[in-house]
């Protein structure tokens, strides 16, 4: 079994265990190691959570919860790449729980349609992109972000979303087609040279 995530490296996947199931922790995470790990991974994780929820405060909250869980579970994983996968899986679960709790299946629907005259062009672009992405379901957002930005393979995406690897192909195709339709509707779709 191999995995590919973000860095594009193909690595053997070790068994995933945590502090509750293994006999001892050979290398506990101290504050210094955690700080370095956090600085390397928190930015991209926050971006993912923000694109998922559309709310900076919620993204902050979920980011901290993800790292709290990480420190509590103290997963013993062979490489940082695997720890990173663990983070994204946990963050996805927390984001989905958040949507269930708030009963907002479409997440940040409260984003207004109007961009506002006082907004700078860059802000308008950001707002429009966020608005377009918010029209997808949370799972579709997660699929697209993990596949296109994190460059996760189907196995990792399936693990993060709790779906079978074989289903990821179909779900990803549907999510891409839906986003493509949205972009076409808004006149933002690129020309695909066939």
């Amino acid at each position, binding site marked *: 079994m191999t995995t590919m995530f973000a860095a594009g490296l193909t690595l053997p996947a070790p068994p995933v265990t945590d502090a509750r199931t293994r006999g001892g922790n050979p290398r506990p995470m101290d*504050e210094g190691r*955690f*700080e370095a790990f*956090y*600085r390397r991974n*928190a*930015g991209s994780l*926050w*971006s993912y959570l*923000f*694109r998922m929820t559309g709310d*900076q405060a919620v993204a*902050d909250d979920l*980011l*901290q919860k993800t*790292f*709290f869980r990480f*420190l*509590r579970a103290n997963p013993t994983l062979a490489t940082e790449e695997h720890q990173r996968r663990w983070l994204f899986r946990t963050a996805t679960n927390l984001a989905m729980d958040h949507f269930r709790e708030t009963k907002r299946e479409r997440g940040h629907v409260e984003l207004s349609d109007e961009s506002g005259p006082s907004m700078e062009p*860059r802000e308008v*672009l*950001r707002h429009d*992109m966020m608005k377009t*992405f918010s029209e997808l379901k949370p799972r579709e957002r997660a699929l*697209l*972000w993990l596949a*296109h*930005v994190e460059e996760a*393979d*189907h196995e990792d995406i399936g693990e993060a979303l709790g779906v079978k690897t074989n289903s990821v*192909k179909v779900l*990803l*195709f549907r999510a*891409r*087609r839906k*986003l*493509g339709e949205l*972009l076409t509707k808004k006149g*933002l*779709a*690129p020309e*695909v*040279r*066939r």
Partner: protein
Amino acid sequence: MSCPFEANVLRAAHDDEWSDSVRRHLLECDDCVAAAAVAPWMARFAKIGDREHSLPDPQIVWLKAKVLQGTVDAARVARPMTIVQLFAYLVVAGGWAAILTWKWDAVTTWLRGFTPTGLVQNVALGGDSMSLWFFAFVFILSSTTVMLAMHTIMAEE
């Protein structure tokens, strides 16, 4: 990847350089067409600046995690005591309910004996007295209730 050719298609979409082989592949692969249609937009979307403030400080996250872990550990250690305490509440509440149900008539008669009329009647006729066992039981139950209340108050503090 949905298709083994997908990486090439995404690269072509990213660079906007479509080779003949990629174009030929797109004619027969819907997965890659869908991927190519959204890839440039997703790349732009990933790059737009989004964070208007700095991330939570890692030291604060570490400290909060430690505090939360302490709370979780304390709750785990205190769990057996909490279970015993709940059991004691149930026993005490059940004891009082049982005694009031079982000896309700005797208790009301006994209480009525403290009214002026009751006192006169007791002196004149000689009142019924409660059994020593009953008073012992009430005494034990009262002591347990007081102990439990004290324990709860001290535990809260």
